[in-house]
């Protein structure tokens, strides 16, 4: 699915300083019964966010109105576990365009890139600085500059660069996806397939 282009994003951020946030927390399995891609944001972090009677859990960050923004900042090893792309959809559908962490699980990172959420992997030290900046002021803004591949804490001017491969960067900048690319080389694939035994 084509998605919005991503260039430079300046926004406040929502801090989630927990490690190993797995995709079962991001979107529990019982919400995977849909046959369409919409509406997952309501159940993002469902069991951390709501009591069993559906009343909000006050202490969870998404229920705290002083935090908002299009950037989610998570602890190390974000997105481990199940391959469910629904986790990335839920994050996107809720309104996030970027997830920042010091380490991402592979499948989750891929899923994000495929649907237009930018995963930004930074050093553990810089992650700590971001958490501190948000703690000092929930209004603290971050700027993510995809063309320059940098992330900056606007208040302090602290900045770090991040990696993304050239191909994926191009896709994000232009809102292209892999399927467009693959369909454009279908003849080459069919040729290749002739030699692949079943």
């Amino acid at each position, binding site marked *: *699915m084509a998605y919005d282009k991503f260039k430079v994003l300046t926004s406040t951020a929502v801090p989630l*300083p*927990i*490690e*190993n946030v*797995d995709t*079962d*927390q991001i979107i*529990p*399995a*019982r919400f*995977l*019964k*849909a*046959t*369409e*891609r919409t509406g997952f944001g309501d159940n993002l972090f469902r*069991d951390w966010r709501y009591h*069993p009677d559906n009343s909000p859990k006050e202490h969870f960050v998404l229920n705290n109105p002083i935090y908002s923004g299009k950037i989610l900042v998570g*602890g*190390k*090893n974000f997105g*481990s*576990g*199940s*391959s*469910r*792309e*629904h986790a*990335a959809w839920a994050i996107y559908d809720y309104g996030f365009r970027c997830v920042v962490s010091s*380490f*991402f*699980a*592979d*499948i989750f990172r*891929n*899923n994000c890139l*495929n*649907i237009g959420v930018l995963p930004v992997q930074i050093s553990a030290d810089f992650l700590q600085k971001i958490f501190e900046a948000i703690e000092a002021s929930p209004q603290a803004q971050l700027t993510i500059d995809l063309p320059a591949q940098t992330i900056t804490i606007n208040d302090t001017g602290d900045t770090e660069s991040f990696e993304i*491969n*050239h*191909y*994926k960067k191009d896709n994000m900048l232009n809102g292209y*996806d*892999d*399927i467009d*690319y*693959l*369909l454009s*080389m*279908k003849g*080459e*694939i*069919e040729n*290749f*397939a002739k030699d*692949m*035994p*079943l």
Partner: protein
Amino acid sequence: MSSKKTLFDKVWDAHVVRNIENGPDVLFIDRHLVHEVTSPVAFLGLKNRQSKVLYPNRTFATADHNTPTRNQHLPVKDPLSANQLRALEENAREHGIPYWGLGHEKNGIVHVIGPENGITLPGATIVCGDSHTSTHGAFGAIAFGIGTSEVEMVLSTQCIMQPKAKKMRITIDGSLNRAVTPKDVALYIISQLSTSGATGYFVEYAGEVFRNMSMEGRMTVCNLSIEMGARGGMIAPDDKTFAYIKGREYTPKGAAWDTAMEYWKTLQTDEDAVFDKEVVFDGTKIEPMITYGTNPGMGIGISLGIPRAESLEGGVATYRKSLDYMNFHEGDAMLGKKIDFVFLGSCTNGRIEDFRAFAEIVKGRKKADHVTAWLVPGSHRVEEAIKDEGILDILEEAGFELREPGCSACLAMNDDKIPTGKYAVSTSNRNFEGRQGPGARTLLASPLVAAAAAVTGKVTDPRELLQLETA
């Protein structure tokens, strides 16, 4: 001059359709497994692009994640689940994909039926919208889980785009002690490397322990590769592999078999091939394992106590949050902890050997009164074998009931949910918060440990029960 290659290199390189500079490889996929939960949106995408499935004969569909484990002959009650199942059936029909729905003799968990039917072959690339696709690596295939966007890519172009992973080899020599199963070996590795220790890598398992392991055991180990973050895990094919696949429905026959065998025999890591990372463990040091926390890396030998936060690297707050969820305390012994549920099943431990192991312990004993046990075969074939081998009689005599195949309490999308606050000893693969039901508390372990818990009602060392019998 040929450069030295690992097993992973050989299989990967043979499938690269195009290499994009400073970008991913376009990788050809031999076989694609599809289930009801991660495919509907992919088929919808196909429809929106007015595209067709490029190679329906390389695609196989089953219903497993969302299916009841009782009364499968009746209509599925939950309307959302029924809707997903219907969508898969219709999509499969429309695109000419073999579909093994509820009640079909080949129905079962996607990673159990692949090998059973010879869909899983050495040297193949296999993907599925499920992270435990790594299971199929046991046959020397490159197999890994993908997201729904990628499911759509494979349906419409039989390719995905991914950068080649780094390579890690995990070597374990030495003989395993009695009652130490492949599940324990895997939980041990994950406890040592942590749940992100192999992220970015594709793992090859090597050494005596894996050579001596049955195909089913190898599947259990490869299955759990994802739980240390690995993209996948694989084991070089050998005579056991070839014996297992020979004659199965989708394996090559006649001359095609001979040609394939010639190629498969070359699927070994070259002697001087270099891995990005090498890890070595001593197989004699492993004991039956159990987890105490909320990720599969939080496992210990069953006779040990829960580690203190100070003794671990980093993450004290996350560690304490995890123990709070479990209502366990640092220093607690695991042995003797009371449990409420036992789950035997899943693509990790839902094959016939797992039921044999479970039966070995419960034979002549009785299920503990307060324990609810869900015994769920991985497929109809497994279910048949349980009956044919007389295992069902042993189970029933001990007070257990056998259910119908499916993922069941592994992810609790159907009715098989562990209630809030209850403890389950589970042979599945994830002890994440709420994985087996909101508020459920999961202790991952082998079928032997699960059986010992089922008959004693508490965490029990299976060696105790086995020794009692042989004394």
